[in-house]
Every structure is written in C-alpha cells, then in structure tokens.
C-alpha cells in the first residue's frame, strides 16, 4: 500500500523526459499495467512518476533504413494491429498479453523494462535481434536486447535512462512466438519459446531461438540455433535443437507450474514454434 505521495510529470519532448527522469526517485510510467499494482502493493515507492506516453518520439512504428523503429511507448494493441511479417515473433507475443484492456494500455517498452522472465514480447525481441535505445543526460547508448537482462525483473537500464525506442533489423526469414498457459487467454506464460529462421533454397542459413519463463531471464539459446543452420529443419534437426533448449533451461517450481512440467512442455513447444517459424519463412517473400 502506498505510504507516500508522489509528483506526476508529463514531459512532451525527449529532452524534458530525460531531465525529469534524472530526478531522485523517478520512475517512468508508461501503460502502468505493472507499475500501478506494484506501487499499490508497496513493492515500489516512486517519488516522481514521469509519464512517457506524451512524448511523440516514443510513439509509433516506422521504417528507418534497414530497421523498424518502434517507439517505446507504442501500445501492444497498436503493435498487434500491424500486418507484415518482419515483426512476427514480437507481434505473436504482443497479441496475447493480458486482456484487450491491458493491451490498450501496456507498451512494448514497458514490457521490456519490466524484464519479467515470462514477458511475452521479450523472446521475440531476442530472436529478432532488437536493440534498445537508451537516453539520459549523459547521452545515448544502444543496447542489444540480448545484453539487456541481468536477472528476474532486472536489466542494464539505469533509473535515469529513458528507453526511447526499440530497433528491429529488417531481415529475411520467418519468426514466431508460442507459449504454454493453463488458461487459453488472460494468463501469464508458464513456458514461452520464440524462433527465427532464415531459409535459402530450403536450407536454414541463420536461426535464433529464445526461451521464456524457464530461466532467470528470457534468453537466447545459440547452441540450439546453430544445430539448425545447414539443415532443412527436418525432424531430426529440430529434435536436436530441442535438446539444446532443454539443456539451456533452468525452470523452477512456483505457483504457476512445476519444473518437471515446464521441462516436458519445452520440447513440443519449441518444435511447434520452429515449425510455425519455418512455415512463415517458406511463405515469406523478401522484404
């Protein structure tokens, strides 16, 4: 339960945003779908809430050169309405977070900064090699999402830094994210898997696989991806990849599921996800 008041700031420019976030005890408020309940539960006590939603640079999706730039405060609902295949693994996740009401509020940047091991867009950001643009009074830095997470709900972003955008390189190939939950909707991932496959002449030339909710952070499994390169992603290659995925995971027992069952789900879920990514890769034309 909140025990102190706070100051609410609503900057309209990035310059104001990073100045406001430099205030002691400042927290960035995007959709608030996590921050508001966390504050209500007394888990965080922000002195300053900096509403990031009214800064133009933080909204919208654009193509910039060879990358797609997603404003950090773009809502999951807005993302989910996009078609176009290059963001598939991210969009698969964005479309299933919470309920429609949640997705209208929740943002991609918020999901990344929350850094939950079970975050539904995070495995997609990993396999699509997304890069986070962080700005503060000290300047700008670009951090690949693969280097972003440091632990459950922990990451390299400093409190004074604003996540301004997320850039996803435009590449050939197909990607997908699938998760296992107990309910069919409005649930948190018990296990999540994302995959990206680039296929030339029927042969995998590049790949990435990431796993969620089965390790302290969402993480890439490079060894699994490497086993697919040079194969046709046949059953044997996929089975091989699945073994690497299981080896890279370290799930726990918690109120949402057991370690045993997470491990059991991981193989078929990886396989399903790879097959969906493969279908999309084979069906996609070059951008």
């Amino acid at each position, binding site marked *: *339960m909140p*025990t102190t008041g706070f100051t609410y700031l609503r900057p309209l420019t990035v310059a104001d945003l990073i100045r406001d976030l430099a205030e002691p005890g400042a927290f960035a408020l995007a959709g608030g779908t996590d921050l508001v309940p966390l504050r209500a539960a007394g888990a965080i006590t922000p002195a300053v809430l900096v509403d990031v939603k009214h800064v133009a640079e933080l909204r919208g999706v654009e193509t910039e050169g060879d990358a797609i730039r997603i404003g950090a405060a773009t809502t999951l609902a807005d993302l989910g309405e996009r078609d176009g295949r290059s963001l598939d693994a991210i969009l698969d996740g964005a479309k299933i977070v919470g309920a429609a009401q949640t997705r209208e509020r929740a943002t991609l940047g918020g999901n990344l900064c929350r850094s939950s091991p079970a975050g539904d867009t995070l495995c997609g950001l990993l396999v699509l090699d997304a890069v986070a643009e962080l700005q503060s009074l000290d300047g700008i830095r670009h951090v690949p999402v693969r280097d972003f997470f440091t632990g459950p709900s922990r990451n390299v972003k400093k409190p004074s830094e604003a996540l301004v955008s997320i850039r996803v390189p435009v590449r050939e190939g197909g990607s997908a994210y699938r998760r296992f939950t107990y*309910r069919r*909707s409005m*649930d948190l991932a018990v296990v999540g898997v994302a995959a990206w496959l680039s296929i030339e002449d029927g042969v995998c030339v590049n790949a990435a696989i990431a796993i969620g909710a089965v390790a302290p952070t969402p993480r890439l499994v490079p060894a699994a991806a490497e086993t697919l390169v040079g194969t046709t992603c046949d059953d044997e290659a996929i089975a091989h990849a699945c073994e690497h995925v299981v080896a890279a995971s370290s799930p726990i027992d918690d109120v949402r*599921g057991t370690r045993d069952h997470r491990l*059991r*789900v991981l*193989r*078929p879920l990886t396989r399903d996800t790879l097959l969906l990514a493969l279908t999309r890769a084979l069906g996609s034309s070059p951008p």
Partner: protein
Amino acid sequence: MSASVVGRAVSRVEGVAKVTGAARYAADTEVTGVTHAVLVKSTIARGRVTGIDTAKATAAPGVLGVFTHQNMPRLTVPGPQTMFLKGFLPVQDGEIRYSGQPVAIVVAGTLEQARYAATLVKPAYDAETPQVSLAANMDLAYLPEPHPMSGPPVYTRGDVAAGLESADVKVAAEYSTPLQHHNAMEPTAMVAAWDGDRLTVHASTQGVGDLQRSLMAAFGLPGESVRVVCPYLGGGFGGKALSWPEPILVAAVARQVRRPVKLVLTRADSYTASGHRAETRHSLQVGATRDGRLTAIDHTLTQQVSRTDELMFNNPGQTRVIYACPNVRTTQRAVRLDLPIANFTRSPEASGGHALESALDELAYALNMDPVELRLRNWSATNQETGHPHGSNHLRECYRRGAQRFGWARRDPRPGSMRDRDGLIGWGMATAAHASGGVPGAGADLVIKEDGTARIRSATQDVGTGTYTVMTQIGADVLGLPLRGVEFALGDSAFPRSVVAAASTTVPSVGEAVVRAATQGRDRLIALAVADSKSPLHGLDPKRVAARDGHLFDTERPSRRIAHREVMRRHGKPIEVVVSPAAFTPRRFSVGAYFAEVHVDPGIGRIRLRRVVGVFDPGRVINPKTARSQVIGGAIWCVGIALTEHTLVDPYLGRVLTPNLSGYLLPVNADVPDIEVDFIDRPDPSSPALGARGFGEVPSTGLTAAIGNAVYHATGVRVRDLPITPEKVIKS
C-alpha cells in the same frame, strides 16, 4: 388471448437498470457525510496480538478513529439462527485464528486517508505455527456433533459390509478437491448509518433478513430499529449467504465516530472474508452385481473446518438420495485447521457428487458397461434417503435426450480409442443433482393499486439467478396481468420475511408465497367484480371467473369481462394482502445429465473442453432464458473446478498465495465452449410454485465428473485429485 407469461423466455426485468448503471449496488450507495473504513488484517495465522501501535495512524490526516480489540465496543456474537456461523467476532479479543483476520479498523474522511493510515497501524504478535494442510492432518479427523446444516455425520441404511461382500464387482477409490473460492464479480461492500438508535445498513448480502437479525443480536436492538437493504447483488455464489462480521464491525465504528461508514472489501479480502469451499478427501467403495445393480456405497468425506466452527458444507447428499441402492453409508469427518470458516460455495454438493459420479464411471469400466446404462439401471423413483417418492423425476429422459443430442451412441468406450489429427478425444458423462426446498417458507405482501397494477414484495434476493424476473412472471400469471403490470421488489429487510437466497430454495419458498399472495389478491378482485352491480360479472359464481391479460372474465362466456383497472377504479382503494411464511417447503431434488467432450494433447497433457450438452429436469421451467443462463454459469464454474481452480495456501505462514484473479485461475471465455442446454420442462405436481422446483445449483454439479470421466476416456488416466492439470495427466 395470449399465453401465460410463465414458461416464456422473458429477458431480465432489471436488465436495463443493470446495463445502464441505474441499478445501485451496495458500494454505489450515497449517504451524506459518509466516511471510509479500511481493515488491518493479521499477517499471522495463529497466535495472539500482544500490542498494537496506533499512535501514528490516529494522528494521520483525516483519521476519525482507529479501532482495535483494546478500544472497540463490546458486541454480542450473534447466534447461528441469524446465519452468523463464524462463532466469534474479530477485533473483540487478541486471539488470531487465521491469516487475514481483521485486527483493526481505521476510519477516515476519505478512502485514501483510511488506506494510508491503515499502513501505519503496527500490530505485534505472539505467533504460533499454524496447521493449514489437510493432507498433513488427516490423522486428526473426527466425527463432529450433528448439525442441521451439515447433514448427518454418519448415515446408514441397510448393511454396507454385507452389500459389498455380495457384490460381483467392487470399486474403491480416493478423490480429493482443493480449497476453492466463490469469486463473485462484486466484492462485498457495505455502508452503515445510524439515526439515533436506528441503524440502516446497505450491504451486499444474499440474506437481508439474516443480516438484519445478526445486527439486532450484536447490538441488542429490536427488529424495527435495524434495516438492511440490498436491491442488487453482483453475484454471491454462497459467499454472501452467511451473516459475516464486517457489517457488524462497520456499524459499531459508525456509532463511535457518529458518521456513516462505508467499507468495500478488496479482491484480496474476499479470499479470507467470505468463506470458501473446504478442501476435501473422499474415500469411496462401490459394489454392484454383474448386471450393474448397486449393492452398496460407502462414502467417507473428510473436510476442513476452522478452530471456531465445525460445519461441514461439502455434503454427500447425492450419495444418499439419487440411486437405488439398499446399503449405503455416508460418513462426514472434520479436521480443524487454522483457516477461516468454510461455507457453501456455488453448489457445496459439487464435491461429493464429483466423487460419486467419478466412482460410478470407474464402476462402469469395471463392469464393461456403458456409464449411461449403469445409471439407468440404478434410477430410483423415490428419494432413497427419505423413502418418499420424488415429486417427479425425469432423470432417465435427461440421460436419453442428452445422449442423443451428444451423439453418445458413436462412442467407442475403450480409453485412448478416439483421436483426431493432433490428439486424443474423450467423451464422459455424469448426473447433476441438487436438493431443492426443505427449508422454511417465505412471506410476501401484495398491493393491487387503483390503476389495476400490482406490487409484490419479499425480503429475498436475486443472486443473478433471475428472481426479479421469475417472481414477476409468477405474480403476473396468477393475477392475470401482463408482465409490465406487476412489480416485484426484494432486498429489503422491511419487506415480509424470507429465507436466505441460497440452497436452490428461492423458487419453492418465495415462489410459493407469491402464488399464495397473488391468489388471495386475485380472489378478492373477483369478489369485488361479482359483488358490483355495475360489473358485467355481477352475480356470477366466483369459481366461474378467471383472470388473464389484465381482465377478469367469465370462463363460460369469455367476452363477458372487466378490466382489473376498472374493478379497482370503482373500488377506489388498493387491495392489500400479506401472507406469512409457510412452515416448510417440500424437500425435493432437481436433476440433470451432463455430457462432455475433451481433447487432450498427449505430449504435454493439455486438456481442452470441446463440447458440453446438459439436459435438466427442474420441473416446470418458469423462464427458459434465465434457466439456460443458470446452466451456462453453473457449467463454467464446473469447468474451473475441474481444470484450473485451486486456492494455494502457504503451508508455513497459512496465507493465501493466490488472492487475485490472476493467480486464482477462473476459466476465461476462451476455455468455455458453447454449452448446449435442454430442459424436460414437465411440471412437478407436488410443487407449490406452479410446478417448478428449485434449480439454481443443479448445473454447477456433475460436469466436473463428466470432464474427468472424459479425460479418462481420452487417455486412460484417472486423475482423482482436482483440478485435473496437465501435470497430473502426464504423471499418473
């Protein structure tokens, strides 16, 4: 001449008020000068409060009072006859009986001020290790004293040992169901206001009369001094059926601060404040002859009770009543744990019925007999517990019609034999059954106004079942008025006394009272019409006169008629009727049959419910629309109970770990397929309510077992511990 409004699929009469927001729920009550209360809850599950530092909270902005057991006025604990079953009032002593027990109440000018000040209250505890695990304490199970609300601790007919001995085929199995919560959409809310010694409480309750009587007892006030009002309820499912301490505590602090006080429980509060379904263990032995006739059932049910009560609501009534079986024993044992008191949750019989209907499926496999056929062979025309005939019982037709609609004849009974492209298909079925009636009757009053319209009132509740609508239909039918000519009012303790809206008794109790009041009113109207020299019905034998479409008419010459409005205009003053509660309503059973199809992914054990067919016999169906809605709601509860719902309690701290709708997995729409519903719809000749029986809880029984039986049929794995999660399907 139009057909009766009874039997018509009428939309809810209060529907427009609900969807437009005009309906005022307890938390919407506007009272001038209202202040706000917030509870401080115990963080230990067993022990005592050794001191509470309230200095900072008392000095916080806007705080009007901080109440603990040290400064709270002393209150009388109401007795169980007021449906106050908790056995103690919190904030009266320092004893802690469960985690989440209120230990202090903060009252402030605004909700925000009260919430903030509540965080400043610092209790100190002397904590003991709580016992909250039923599994770990099964050796402490005991037989409590008989209590009318628990059903008999031990019930026996025939010779169970001999019956099992003589059986050709026997099944013995253990089933378990976890702690579950009601999860009504509306958390309990209340506003208490004093005017001198007169108290008015707006509260979300299924029993305005019981809550009124509990307040009378707590404060030593006469009935005319206490009024409880609740015109609309955002769901109850039993969680609002008891008289709980909070309205008493809020009324007590309102008196202290001399201001009206409002308390709205949080979602998290509802996991400790409104009861729950106690965790259960069922041990069943069932014996049958080779041709599938039951020779014996021995059903032992062990469930959690609290430190301050020993009521057992998970009653194995279905085992005693439904099937023809000469030798039956049911035993109900209790285990005391450091948890809040349990109470009826949705249908409390769902748990015992689940065990019985699962065991019968196991028996059907042991006999190599179709499970529908097994049930048909053991159908009984009499209530096997009382020996009396059911008023009517069309369960056999429920099975047959349900099986036909479902396509049951195409079922290959071998487990694992039915598949589709990506998994296993299972078909299962079970009986749904619930008592109806058997409680004291209700009272009602009726006014036929000078404009010929009528208003009927009873201190009952509409839990969402459609009471407003079906009572309006019953009243209109008997009075011969169109639906819009009748207003039914409920939810006010100032209205004629009624029983709590629970236990599927509202139609038999309140419906009976409405029939009686409306009949008397109509007869008085007819008497006026035949006595009036200017009436076209003048001089007729009243027995020849009937009422329909707003008119009284000569049944032998229907064109000779007079409008209700005209009779009343000439009479010049209203007709008033009051009927007192009937001593009892007949105890009946309403029944049905559920058929379910599941799809199971054999790799990860994921279960998807694909299809549900339910066919029911509630006697006459007053309103097919609200009855169908009741089935859909009941079926959804069953889906949750079967597959996902489970309140997790920390075994060391005794705290609920899942006190929210994210952690407690109720099914979402995506988990629930279309529920195909049908009714036999034949009047029960013994019904005092136009042929209808109580039905509310029937649809929330049986489907859990049908789903479990379908999972077995799909996989060959019998998961006897609810919920049936993918882990258990794979592991077993």
